[in-house]
C-alpha cells in the first residue's frame, strides 16, 4: 500500500473499496509492470463512426463462436464409425449412420440447450464471415488500406479466407447428406488438379471418397489448427490497429496528425463492451427463433441420394456459382492426361479474384506513387476510380453468388435454367464493366454536387422577387465546419510521362503512366479559397 501511495500521492485512494483496488493494482504492477500498459493504452483514442463497428461485430461473433463451439465439443463425437441411431428423433430410429451424425442428432434432440447452441454457433459463423466481408468493403471504399495499413489489410484478408475455411470445415462435421455432397464437390475439384489432384484427394480422405477419416481430420482442423491461426491473426490485426491507430473521417479539427474520439477507458470500453452484449443478444435471439441447418431433415450422408435445390452456406456460394457458370465440354486430353478445364478455370478465376483483393493496396500505392501516411478515411466519392473498381468487384462476386442459386432462381421465376445460366454468364463479364462505368459517373456527379454546395450553399426553397421583378432562390451558405467536410480530400493528377535520367522512357513507366491516366484523368478538384471568394462576389 505504501508504495502505491508514494508513487501517486495526488490520487490518495479513499474508502475500503478503493484501498482494495489500489492494493490489488499495486500487487499486480510489482509483478507485471502493468501500469506501463495502462499508461500507454488506457487513454488511447478511438474515433466514432457506425461503419467502424463492422470489424467489432466480426470480433464479437468470433467470441460467440468460441463459447458455443466449446459447448458443442463436449457432446460431439468426430467419428465415422457406423452406428444404429437410437436417439429420440423417431424418423431416423434404427438407421445406419456415422457416430458424428448420430451425436449431432443427440445434441439437437436430447441435450437441453444443444439445439440452441448449435444454432447460435451456426448463425454466429454466418455473421462472422458477413461482418468480415462488410468490414473489408468499408476499409476498401474509404481507402483505409493505404500506407501504413497495407500489411494489416493482408492480415485481414487472411482472416477472411480462414473464416471461410472454418465455416466449411464446421459445416461438414455433422456428416449429413447436404454437407457430404459439399465434400463430394470439394473432392471433385481437388481431383481436377493436373497430376497431383488424385493424390491430394487420396491423402485428404485417407483413401477413396468418402472413407472413414475425413470427419476426424476436419474436426482437428476446425477446432485446433484453424482457430489457432485465426486467434494469432486477430492478435496481429489488433496489435497493428493499436500501432497504426484507427483511421477517422475528415471533419473539423481532424487532421492526419491527430485522432479524435473516445478514450478506451472508459467510454470506448463501455460502448464496445455493451456492443458485444448486443451482438451476442441479437445472435441468441435469432438462434432461438430461426432454424438453421436442420440436419435431421437431410438424413445421414449417402453417396446416392440428393435433393433438388442444394446450396452451400452463403459464403461458399460464390465458389459454387463459378462452377456452375463454366460452359459445357471444357475438358481435353493433353500429354496423356485428362485436363479438366471446366474445373481448373473456375479454380484459377477464384484464386485470381481473391489475389486481386489481397494485393490491391500495393497496386494502388504503385499507381499513385504516394509515399505519405494516410489516416483520414476517404469518402468513396472522392476516389471515383477506386470506388468504381470496388463496385465492379462487388458485382463480379454478386453474379457468382447469384449463380449458386441458379436452379432456385429458375424455379421461383418460372423460367429456364439454361436462360438463367446464360444471363448470368453474360452478366459476369458485362456486369462489372457497367458497374464500373456507372459508379464512376455517380462518384464524379456527387463530387460536382459537393463543389456546387460549397460554392453556392444549399437551395433553401425560398424564392424572392427582386425590385427589378426578377425571381431568385435564396441559397443558404454552409458554415466553415460543413464546408471543411466537403473540401478536405486528396487530389491526384495523372503522371506526366517523362524520360528518366538516361533519357529513356521505360516500359514500366509507360504502363504506370497509362494506369495513372485511367485512374485520374476524370477528376474533380476540391474547392479552393480563391474560388470560394470569387463565388461569394456574385
Amino acid at each position, binding site marked *: 500500500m505504501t508504495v502505491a501511495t508514494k508513487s501517486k500521492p495526488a490520487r490518495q485512494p479513499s474508502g475500503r473499496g478503493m484501498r482494495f483496488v489500489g492494493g490489488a493494482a499495486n500487487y499486480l504492477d510489482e509483478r507485471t509492470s502493468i501500469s506501463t500498459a495502462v499508461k500507454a493504452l488506457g487513454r488511447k483514442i478511438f474515433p466514432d463512426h457506425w461503419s467502424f463497428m463492422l470489424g467489432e461485430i466480426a470480433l464479437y461473433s468470433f467470441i460467440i463462436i468460441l463459447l458455443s463451439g466449446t459447448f458443442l465439443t463436449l457432446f460431439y463425437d468426430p467419428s465415422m464409425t*457406423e452406428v444404429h441411431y437410437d436417439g429420440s428423433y423417431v424418423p431416423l430410429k434404427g438407421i445406419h449412420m456415422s457416430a458424428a451424425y448420430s451425436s449431432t442428432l443427440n445434441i439437437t434432440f436430447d441435450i437441453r440447450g444443444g439445439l440452441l447452441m448449435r444454432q447460435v454457433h451456426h448463425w454466429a459463423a454466418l455473421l462472422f464471415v458477413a461482418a468480415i466481408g462488410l468490414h473489408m468493403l468499408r476499409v476498401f471504399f474509404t481507402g483505409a488500406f493505404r500506407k501504413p495499413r497495407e500489411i494489416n489489410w493482408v492480415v485481414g484478408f487472411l482472416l477472411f479466407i480462414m473464416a471461410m475455411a472454418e465455416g466449411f470445415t464446421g459445416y461438414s462435421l455433422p456428416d449429413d447428406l447436404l454437407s457430404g455432397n459439399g465434400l463430394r*464437390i470439394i473432392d471433385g475439384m481437388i481431383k*481436377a488438379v493436373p497430376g497431383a489432384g488424385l493424390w491430394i*484427394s487420396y491423402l485428404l480422405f485417407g483413401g477413396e471418397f468418402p472413407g472413414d477419416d475425413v470427419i476426424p481430420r476436419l474436426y482437428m482442423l476446425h477446432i485446433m489448427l484453424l482457430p489457432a491461426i485465426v486467434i494469432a491473426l486477430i492478435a496481429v490485426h489488433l496489435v497493428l490497429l493499436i500501432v497504426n491507430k484507427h483511421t477517422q473521417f475528415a471533419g473539423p479539427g481532424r487532421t492526419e496528425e491527430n485522432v479524435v474520439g*473516445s478514450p478506451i477507458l472508459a467510454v470506448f470500453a463501455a*460502448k464496445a463492451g455493451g456492443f458485444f452484449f448486443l451482438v451476442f443478444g441479437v445472435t441468441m435471439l435469432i*438462434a432461438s427463433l430461426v432454424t438453421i441447418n436442420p440436419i435431421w431433415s437431410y438424413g445421414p450422408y449417402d453417396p446416392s441420394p440428393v435433393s433438388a435445390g442444394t446450396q452451400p452456406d452463403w459464403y461458399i456460394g460464390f465458389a459454387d456459382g463459378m462452377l456452375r457458370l463454366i460452359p*459445357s465440354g471444357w475438358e481435353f486430353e493433353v500429354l496423356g492426361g485428362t485436363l479438366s478445364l471446366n474445373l481448373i478455370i473456375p479454380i484459377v478465376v477464384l484464386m485470381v479474384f481473391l489475389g486481386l483483393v489481397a494485393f490491391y493496396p500495393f497496386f494502388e500505392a504503385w499507381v499513385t506513387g504516394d509515399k505519405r501516411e494516410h489516416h483520414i478515411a476517404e469518402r468513396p466519392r472522392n476516389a471515383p476510380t477506386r470506388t468504381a473498381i470496388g463496385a465492379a468487384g462487388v458485382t463480379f462476386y454478386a453474379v457468382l453468388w447469384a449463380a449458386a442459386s441458379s436452379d432456385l432462381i429458375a424455379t421461383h421465376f418460372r423460367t429456364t435454367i439454361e436462360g438463367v445460366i446464360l444471363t448470368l454468364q453474360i452478366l459476369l463479364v458485362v456486369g462489372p464493366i457497367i458497374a464500373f462505368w456507372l459508379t464512376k459517373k455517380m462518384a464524379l456527379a456527387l463530387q460536382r454536387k459537393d463543389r456546387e454546395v460549397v460554392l453556392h450553399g444549399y437551395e433553401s426553397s425560398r424564392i424572392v422577387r427582386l425590385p427589378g421583378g426578377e425571381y431568385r432562390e435564396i441559397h443558404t451558405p454552409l458554415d466553415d465546419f460543413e464546408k471543411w467536410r466537403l473540401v*478536405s480530400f486528396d487530389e491526384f493528377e495523372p503522371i506526366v510521362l517523362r524520360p528518366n535520367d538516361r533519357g529513356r522512357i521505360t516500359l514500366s513507366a509507360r504502363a504506370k503512366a497509362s494506369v*495513372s491516366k485511367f485512374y485520374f484523368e476524370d477528376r474533380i478538384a476540391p474547392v479552393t479559397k480563391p474560388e470560394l471568394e470569387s463565388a461569394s462576389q456574385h
Partner: protein
Amino acid sequence: MAESDKKVALKGSSAVERSGRIDNPGFEPAHQRVHDVNPDKAASAERGISLLFLLSGLLSVTAFVLYFLFPIVPGDLWTVRISTLLVGVAIAASLLTLGVGVVHWAKALMHGHELVEERHETRGDEPTRARAVEIFQEANAESGWTRRRLLRNSLITALVAFPVPAIALFRDLAPAADPVEALKHTIWRAGTRLARDPSGTPIKASEISIGSAVHVIPENLDTYEETFLNEKAKAAVLLMRLDPADLNISEERKDWSYDGIVAYSKICTHVGCPVALYEQQTHHLLCPCHQSQFDVSNECAVIFGPAARPLPQLPISVDAEGYLVAQSDFLEPVGPSFWERNQ
C-alpha cells in the same frame, strides 16, 4: 480555376497540393447533452440504466430456471422447440438489456467530449532506427553472419532440408494402394444383380415399365461392411426404361441394354454429385448440384452445364430367372475426372 492557385506535385507521386487550400476550421464547439445540463434527467437516466442491469440479472436467472422447468421429453419434438425457444429468448433478453444498459450509460452519462490524441509517423524516430541498424551490425560482427559465408550458406542448406522428413511423415494419411487402380474399378462384375437402392432387392426386367427410373445398387453391396460407402459412391446406378425406338444406340453398345432398359452411372462426371433427377418426357437427367444435363436417349451425352463427359454406361442383360444383371464392370472410371483416368 483561379490564376493565383498554384499546384505543387509531391515528389514521385501523382498527388498534388494547392496553395489555395481551404484551411481546417478547427474543432466545433462541444455539444452539450441534456444529461450534462439537467441533473434531474441524469438521475433518471441513472435509475433507468440500473433498472436495465437488474432486469438483465433477473432474466439470466429466469433462463436458468426455465431450463429445468421445461425439460426435453425424449421423443417429443415439441418439448425441444419449447426448451430452445424459452431458454434462448430469456438469455437473449438478458444479453440485450445488459448491452443496451452499458451503451446507454456510455452515451448518456459518461464524459461525452471528444478527446484528441496526437499521431506520430509509424516509422521509429531516427535515433531508434540508427540504433536498430547498429544492433544488427554488432550482431553481424559478433556472429560473422556475412563474413563466414560458407558457415551461413551451409546453415541455410540445413534449414531448407529440415522440413523434408515432415513431407514423408504425411504419406500414411492414405493407404499404400494405388489410387488410380482403385478408382478404375467398382464392385460391378459380370452377373452381379441390379438391386433397388436402398432395400437391396434384385430387380426383374419385367417389373420395369416404360418411362420409369430406378435407383440401383449392386445386390452384393451389403457384404462390403467396412467400405460400404466407398463402394456405393462408385457403384450407384440409375436405371431407366425407354421406348427402344427413342434410344440412339451406337454399334459397339448394341448389346449393353435390354429391351429399352439402360443403366448409367449415377455419379456426375463433373464433381461427383448424384445425378438423381430424371425428366421422363425429355429423357434428360439433371444433376441438382450444378445443373449438368445428360440425354439418356443419346447415351447420356452432355447437353447442358459444366460437365464435359457422358455418364458411363453399365452394360446389362438378364439372367435365367429374369433378373437384371451386369455384363461386366464399367468400362471407364466413373465420377469426376482426374489426370490419370485414361492412362
